[in-house]
């Protein structure tokens, strides 16, 4: 079995709770042991915050964020920021103002493992979200239910766990939740409906914060979030008892996302054979992972076009539900696109983008084809490959020459199913 040694388990952990390690990072985390590695990841504030190396107004929001992911010393913080972006979505094409999306991104980063009730309160005041789900048009006597509906359908309870009346009443509670033209939250008293509302069977003069608290405390939300987080980190179809166990952790901690995520990472299911190579890398995980593992110095500007072609434009999720994930990433065009994007990255090996270290430095002294293949497999896929994969790579290495040999081996190995999986 693949997760039978500490190093492989830690590598698995760093792919899931981060974007895949460089060799040096993997060495460091392995020395901590799996449990110590989890502790360092979830207590990320003990690690330094890497200052921005590029400015969003110069390189665009996407490259700015990708660069953070590549260089962060707090991989789980960025991984959770990505989770929130796909969960509490907003998209630039409607919000228009990149400053608001950047502020939302910082909100997610600051609360990456925060308390869910507080996150819900904060997102209902977020300038990008207010525009994305039309909260600023939600007024007493003329409610806009967009936020209310998605709050329950996608952010907390899940479809089927509330009524149309609940939607109407939650919309009333959020009347007056608005923003200035530059996206600062304002509560417009004149537009707020101060009357009684009945929501999920409870009656009171609720406002938006009351609703956020009520929904965050719901056992239905606990199960919904437990399931969604488990799917993000472990595998797609968690057993009901696993979801129940994690929902209990959520409720006992009053909605601590940190507690739930830590419980997932330390669970036997996370390190089980079923979890190994069970998730398909998102385009973000694929590109950031390759750049981290190969020691890239900078995110190439072509990454923007690549992300679009591979189906994940950051700050522009396809709709309120975020990205489908897993098998939906894959079709003939995106697969060929993945190979070509990774191929272009591999082609930079030995060049300035990769820090200028010679290609041979990655070889660690290996000279024979078989040793070089093993070396690349170790770096990219836990050293685990099938016999025909190995044979094909060795045969390729035998007939390829010079720096192209190693670039080709990296390209081919990154095209293997094992590398496309997390």
């Amino acid at each position: 079995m693949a997760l039978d040694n500490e190093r492989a388990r830690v590598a698995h952990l760093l792919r899931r709770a981060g974007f895949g390690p460089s060799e040096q990072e993997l060495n460091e985390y392995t020395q901590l042991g799996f449990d110590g590695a989890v502790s360092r990841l979830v207590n990320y504030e003990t690690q330094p915050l890497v200052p921005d190396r590029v400015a969003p107004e110069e390189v665009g929001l996407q490259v700015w964020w990708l660069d953070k992911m590549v260089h962060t010393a707090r991989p789980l913080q960025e991984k959770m920021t990505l989770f929130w972006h796909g969960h509490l979505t907003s998209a630039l094409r409607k919000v228009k103002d990149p400053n608001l999306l950047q502020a939302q991104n910082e909100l997610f980063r600051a609360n990456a493992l925060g308390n869910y009730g507080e996150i819900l309160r904060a997102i209902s005041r977020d300038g990008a979200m207010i525009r994305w789900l039309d909260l600023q048009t939600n007024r007493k006597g003329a409610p806009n239910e967009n936020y209310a509906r998605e709050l329950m359908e996608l952010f907390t309870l899940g479809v089927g766990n509330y009524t149309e009346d609940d939607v109407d009443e939650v919309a009333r509670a959020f009347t007056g939740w608005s923003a200035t033209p530059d996206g600062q939250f304002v509560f417009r008293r004149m537009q707020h409906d101060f009357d009684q509302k009945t929501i999920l069977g409870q009656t009171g003069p609720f406002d938006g914060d009351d609703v956020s608290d009520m929904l965050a405390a719901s056992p239905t939300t606990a199960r919904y979030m437990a399931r969604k987080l488990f799917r993000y980190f472990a595998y797609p179809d968690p057993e009901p008892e696993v979801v129940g166990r994690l929902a209990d952790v959520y409720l006992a901690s009053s909605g601590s996302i940190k507690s739930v995520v830590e419980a997932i990472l330390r669970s036997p299911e996370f390190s089980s054979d079923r979890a190994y190579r069970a998730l398909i890398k998102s385009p973000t995980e694929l590109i950031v992972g390759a750049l981290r593992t190969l020691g890239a110095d900078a995110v190439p500007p072509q990454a923007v076009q690549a992300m679009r072609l591979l189906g994940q434009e950051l700050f522009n999720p396809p709709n309120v539900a975020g990205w489908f994930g897993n098998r939906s990433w894959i079709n003939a065009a995106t697969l060929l696109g993945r190979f070509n994007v990774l191929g272009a990255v591999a082609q930079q090996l030995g060049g300035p983008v990769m820090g200028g270290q010679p290609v041979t430095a990655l070889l660690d002294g290996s000279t024979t084809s078989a040793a070089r293949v093993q070396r690349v497999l170790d770096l990219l896929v836990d050293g685990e490959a099938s016999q025909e994969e190995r044979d094909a790579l060795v045969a390729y290495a035998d007939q390829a020459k010079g720096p192209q040999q190693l670039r080709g081996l990296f390209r081919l190995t990154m095209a293997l199913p094992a590398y496309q999986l997390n």
Partner: protein
Amino acid sequence: MPLHRRDFLKRGVGLVAASMVVPAFIAETARVLDLGPAVAAAQIGAPPADASRRVLVVLLLAGGNDGINTVIPYGDPLYYQARPTLAVPREQVLHLNDMVGLSPALPKLKARFDAGQVAVVQGVGYPNPNRSHFRAMDIWQTAVPERLEQTGWLGRYLQACACGTDKQLEGISMGATVQRSFWTELTLVPAISNLAAFRYGNPRANPDASQYEVEALRRALSQARGRPEEEFLRQATRTALDDADVMEQVAQGYQTSVEYPMSPLGQSLKTIAQVIAGDVGTRVFFATLGGFDTHANQPFQQQRLLTELDGSIEAFMQDMERLNRQNDVMLMTFSEFGRRVHQNASNGTDHGTAEPLFMVGGKVQGGLHGAYPSLSDLDRGDLKYTTDFRSVYSSVLQGWMGVSPEQILGGAYPTLPLVA
């Protein structure tokens, strides 16, 4: 000579056993439905004899096309009252009858209408129309207005029909990203911008290296895997490499005397024509023409777009006639919504509701279908729809694609006679 995909696979990639190219999701579909593919196909009804060569081209007019200035109710004085500066003068309208006519930017479409090859479905919409681009687009592409649905109607069609083993190329979404209409968990419809980029490696930079790598990759992926996602990716990768080979042949085998507009839509339709000429078994294509969100200074912008639409469709149909495939194609337009009856203060129109759809093809039942919505009986300033869009989808699925639409659309809708 048209190149058939399966023949090509046997000839060109002969070392691949037939069972190897059956994508995983076929088995998946059968497993999920707990049916063999044959049983699934039988359940939705046997397609007409010639249906296997039938192609549907869905063309999205993105942004919300002003249907009222596309299919113009010039016989109604209310039209001229509602649009003092936007209305097209009656003598410029290309009359279809004494009440409605086409925009003067659509002369070629008008000629095809006169030849009986264009169906105009009037007043298409749905209850409680949504005026948000995003939500309305989801509604049209999923065909589910009532709730948030992830899967698209064309994806569900491809999944349900289980038409053959070459499922991956049975739908092609033109452009950078796969349109929502094709989304399902199990179909693998690719998004193709241009055929030259649909391949492994960079042949111009290093043709030999790419070829060596493709061979190595095929060899590395010859054996089945135990882990489900690894096996899924193994098969998807093999299929992608095969598809790239097929598409390379398709591109090499196509030459046309028809001049397509150099516009993105013209080039998309030209690529679609190439694939149809290659006869690789693609059933559904999706192409997009964007820019219809004409809140301000509408006339110039809409005229430019409709002219592009007119020229592109005409070139495509001429190419189909050249290939003698004009009776095998149906091209259908739609937009996420129509626009308001009354013009706004910026010489434009705001988001509206019901809209006209065009169906073009050699076997389309030409003429006007459905009723033009009243310009006086409005819903908050917008047209009330007269034909549910799911009726149009049903008509296409049943009349053209030869499948029973109920399971795909989650209900029965009255059909229109859109196929001759």
